[in-house]
């Protein structure tokens, strides 16, 4: 059992649910409204330092009694220790948790994928849009258990809607460019980009 599980319980007491060990990995269940606090503590506390967010995903079980789980897999690169943190949500209820993008920028697309496939809303996410399915996709959330394998619409309607979409609407040049993130890049990279001719950057002369 990972020692961080007991440390979490000592710090957050009731916000921490059961902790189980599965195939050598420790899984800690936490309250859905404390995600940001718990993960920030895990990331920043000396002795724990889970500074790498490996994955954010979700699980819905075929057993309808079981809750839908949002899974955070974190790893400490220095200590070489993994920890899995799970949040349980009622699949019939409000599927909302806090976004962890303020802690890890890399959570951005991971949370978009969970939103796209399961319909979980991440509170405070900067850009919560579908990422795999196209934006006008109207059939629901494909990885939910109540979603039919072949989709909700007839094949003809699916083909019609697919052909009616504008291919440029999903992949704009703006989306692919790094212009928006330019201010956040390290100085040396900015310098290299200024020298090179890679499109138009906001601060280049």
């Amino acid at each position, binding site marked *: 059992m990972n020692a961080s599980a007991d440390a979490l319980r000592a710090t957050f007491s009731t916000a921490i649910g059961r902790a189980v060990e599965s195939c050598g990995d420790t899984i800690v269940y936490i309250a859905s409204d404390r995600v940001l606090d718990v993960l920030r503590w895990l990331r920043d506390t000396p002795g724990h330092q889970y500074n790498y967010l490996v994955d954010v995903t979700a699980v819905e079980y075929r057993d309808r009694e079981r809750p839908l789980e949002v899974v955070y897999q974190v790893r400490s690169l220095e200590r070489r220790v993994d920890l899995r943190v799970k949040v349980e949500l009622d699949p019939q209820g409000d599927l909302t948790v806090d976004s962890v993008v303020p802690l890890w920028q890399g959570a951005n697309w991971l949370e978009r994928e969970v939103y796209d496939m399961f319909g979980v809303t991440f509170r405070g996410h900067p850009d919560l849009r579908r990422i795999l*399915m*196209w934006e006008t996709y109207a*059939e629901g959330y*494909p990885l939910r*258990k*109540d*979603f*039919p*394998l*072949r*989709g909700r619409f*007839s*094949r*003809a*309607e*699916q*083909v*019609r*809607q*697919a*052909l*009616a*979409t*504008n*291919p440029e609407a*999903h992949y704009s040049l703006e989306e692919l460019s790094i212009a928006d993130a330019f201010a956040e890049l390290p100085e040396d990279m900015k310098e290299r980009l200024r020298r090179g001719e890679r499109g138009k950057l906001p601060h280049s002369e």
Partner: protein
Amino acid sequence: MKHVLETKEVAGSPNWLTTRFEELVRWALRVTRVDKAVNWSRANSLWPMPFGTACCAIEFMATAASRFDFARFGMERQAFSPRQADVLICAGRLPFKLAPVIRRIYDQMPQPKWVISMGACASSGGIFDNYAMVQGIDTIVPVDVYVPGCPPRPEGLLYGVLLLHKKIKGESLLDPALRQEQPLDERGLRLPPETIDEISEPFGNSVHQFRSA
């Protein structure tokens, strides 16, 4: 053909019918020869537009590379721009998200153009009978040759190309419908919706798939 038969000669002269018949035969021969020459050159200089989306694209690349080398069959230059392409080779599964893309590529290709559907997924959806996948690209664009296989070996694709050669060599310049663009209809579909539903029906193993709702 009309202008050949319209003539100032007096109809009814003894040689009239024979002369007309000879002219007709000569004209037909000429057209056939032109057909033959045009089709021969078209068939032997097909520029493929590769549309590779999955493992079939690996076999496609093997077909293009030195061991199998489809340049031997006139496909010397791969056209990565639809405007310079003759044959669209869809190698791999096509998700609905890519359906408008392949349709646009097909529309951008100039006539004459042909389409090869390479592999089980492009031809029928294959094992991917699910919410995300087009069940056969013939619901999106007209297809000339289907190459079965998962994925087909390069020999399979080459055989498909040779079948396409055969098809091209049987075409006639006199058939105006052959080279007509087929835009989407007012519903935004290529085929009637009933037809799409019918050809997208589950078949083979996928009829046993569990449908949870």
